[in-house]
């Protein structure tokens, strides 16, 4: 089953889905494993696993630091892919890779997507590859039935959204605001108008990310978006209270 179908079937059961984010290798794959277990057991519907990159241009301080510290442990892309395969085989929810384009470019687009497909990864999010220069990337994704998830932002025009929607698969990642990951977003009237524009531009499910932090935020998204994305928040939680804190936190979100 492909990503969009999988999500749509879950959407039948819940009024909003939860997607979470982890940085592979931070603080270690062991902790990642435990965190993912807790997430899945507490009802997370989808997880994006970030393969760390030395230049995470679109990430804020928390994820930036996580990338750097993961790399400092010596983790390789191959380690990440083996771990990703293990997770996809172990847990029955869709897993995605999130990373910057260079990681995939250096690995080889074709090999990367073949690997993802073979190991059961459902989608890939790359924040620095606009579709007009990602033709081969998009083709390999489609050929391998791995969803290339594209991004809408508040600065995207309606026309641009329609263009992006044409290439996106699985769902659309709607960035809640200008800026990088990690800072709280105001979910105000402007934001609602923005989400309406997003909905109008695509028939794909909408995920909303950047600064979603607690139950109130998620409550506010219900009926307006299909998926709420929790990013830096769980990373900070693990830093502060350890992996065991993740389960209760997730459980309390919905």
């Amino acid at each position, binding site marked *: 089953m492909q990503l969009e179908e999988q999500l749509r079937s879950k959407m039948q059961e819940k009024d909003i889905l939860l997607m979470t984010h982890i940085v592979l290798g931070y603080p270690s794959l062991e902790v990642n494993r435990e965190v993912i277990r807790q997430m899945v057991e507490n009802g997370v519907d989808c997880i994006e696993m970030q393969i760390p990159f030395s230049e995470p241009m679109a990430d804020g301080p928390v994820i930036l630091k996580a990338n750097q510290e993961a790399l400092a442990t010596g983790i390789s892309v191959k380690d990440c892919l083996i771990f990703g395969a293990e997770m996809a085989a172990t847990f029955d929810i869709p897993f995605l890779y999130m990373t*910057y*384009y*260079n990681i995939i470019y250096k690995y080889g687009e074709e090999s990367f997507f073949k690997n993802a497909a073979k190991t059961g990864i459902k989608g890939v999010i790359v924040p620095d590859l606009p579709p007009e*220069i990602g033709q081969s990337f998009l083709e390999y994704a489609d050929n391998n039935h791995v969803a290339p998830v594209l991004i809408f932002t508040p600065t995207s025009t309606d026309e641009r959204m329609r263009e992006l929607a044409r290439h996106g698969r699985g769902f659309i990642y709607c960035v809640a605001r*200008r800026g990088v990951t990690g800072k709280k977003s105001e979910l105000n009237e402007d934001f609602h108008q923005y989400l309406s524009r997003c909905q109008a531009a695509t028939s794909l499910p909408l995920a909303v990310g950047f600064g979603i932090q607690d139950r109130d935020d998620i409550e506010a998204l219900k009926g307006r978006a299909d998926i709420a994305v929790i990013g830096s928040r769980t990373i900070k939680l693990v830093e502060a209270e350890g992996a065991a804190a993740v389960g209760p936190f997730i459980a309390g979100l919905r």
Partner: protein
Amino acid sequence: MDTNGFFGNWGGAYIPEVLYQTFLELREEYARCRKDPAFWQEYIELMETYSCRPTPLTHAKNLTKHFGGAQIYIKREDLNHTGAHKANNVMGQGLLVKRMGKKRVIAETGAGQHGMATATMAAKFGLDCTIYMGEEDVLRQRPNVFWMEKMGATVVPVQDGSRTLKDAINEAFRDWVTNVDDTHYVFGTACGPAPFPEMVAWFQSIISIEAHKQILNYHGKLPARVYACVGGGSNAMGVFKRFLEEDEVELVGVEAGGYGADSGAHAIRLSSDDASAGVAQGYKTMFLQDDDGQMKQTHSVAAGLDYVGVSPILTDLWEKKLVRFESATDDEVMTALDLTMKKEGIIPALESSHAFAGAFREVGSLSTEEAIIINQSGRGDKDIFTIAHAFDDPSWKEFIIERGKEYSNTDKQ
């Protein structure tokens, strides 16, 4: 540049979606400027009345005699206001910012020269200004930081990654995606997402437009070769551009050899096999990266050259064999600098000294009928802390120790 911003296989605009619209507007405004002769005229007038253009082309007679080969001419970008070619690009972008009606500029800086130039432009054009600078570079280039602040800019030391230029670029992008509506990112070199490489090269082309005229005037014919140091590649593109139209002129880019090509501690992207194709900081080029695509640490005695990437335009010219690339080690560079000071009374920046070192190696084997041009991208004053340190000057050290003690004592009171 094709419509997607590529030069052959290189370049493009690998940008976060939030910047899409801004880049669209930037590309359009840039296209309008290129078509409008009045814009270039305004640019030239600004550079003539605020900076010192045209900068001279100096016949280095003593160095010529010393090497006994081609006539050495030095293009004097060091005489620009703020002391380097960086001013050309920044003033040009300043005019663009005014047309776009933005109120704030940000910039990354390595050596501090681009930050100085941007802070200067912001003061002149009445813009808010924030400069991102790797913490490592803040320490290496404190005088520049001081002046930027005095001109009203906020200098943010970047503590991520290698804490040098590339990290400052990342951080500037983070600012930009956050403040995209009122802010323009004044990219400092011919790198980054399109249209920056081409736009920066366009503003810098003023160097070779002048030099082309000057060399014909002084030497009576075209130079055999033109040398430039290559960090991001803006001064090189600037001094090469007009000469690219002339088949008989060989263009030579000199990269930072650091401790040597085999040491792993250098910034040689094109003249060794250490780099490979990649995509980062918004564009595709040859990067110094590992097999996974993680960027490597680089090293150069010149803070402005130790960058992991290089202009996609240069990479294209390299691939097409239209520009030859060489490198010079830190040691060769110090020797070239020393000789240039003693023979000509000219103090090239450490960056520029790479071009001198590259030229000195070869100039003796050219005929005295020929000429070469070396682009002196900046002046070395800014590097006093580094140069005095590198020459291990005892009275300098004593002076700093004394000053340090004075400050320690008064701080305690």
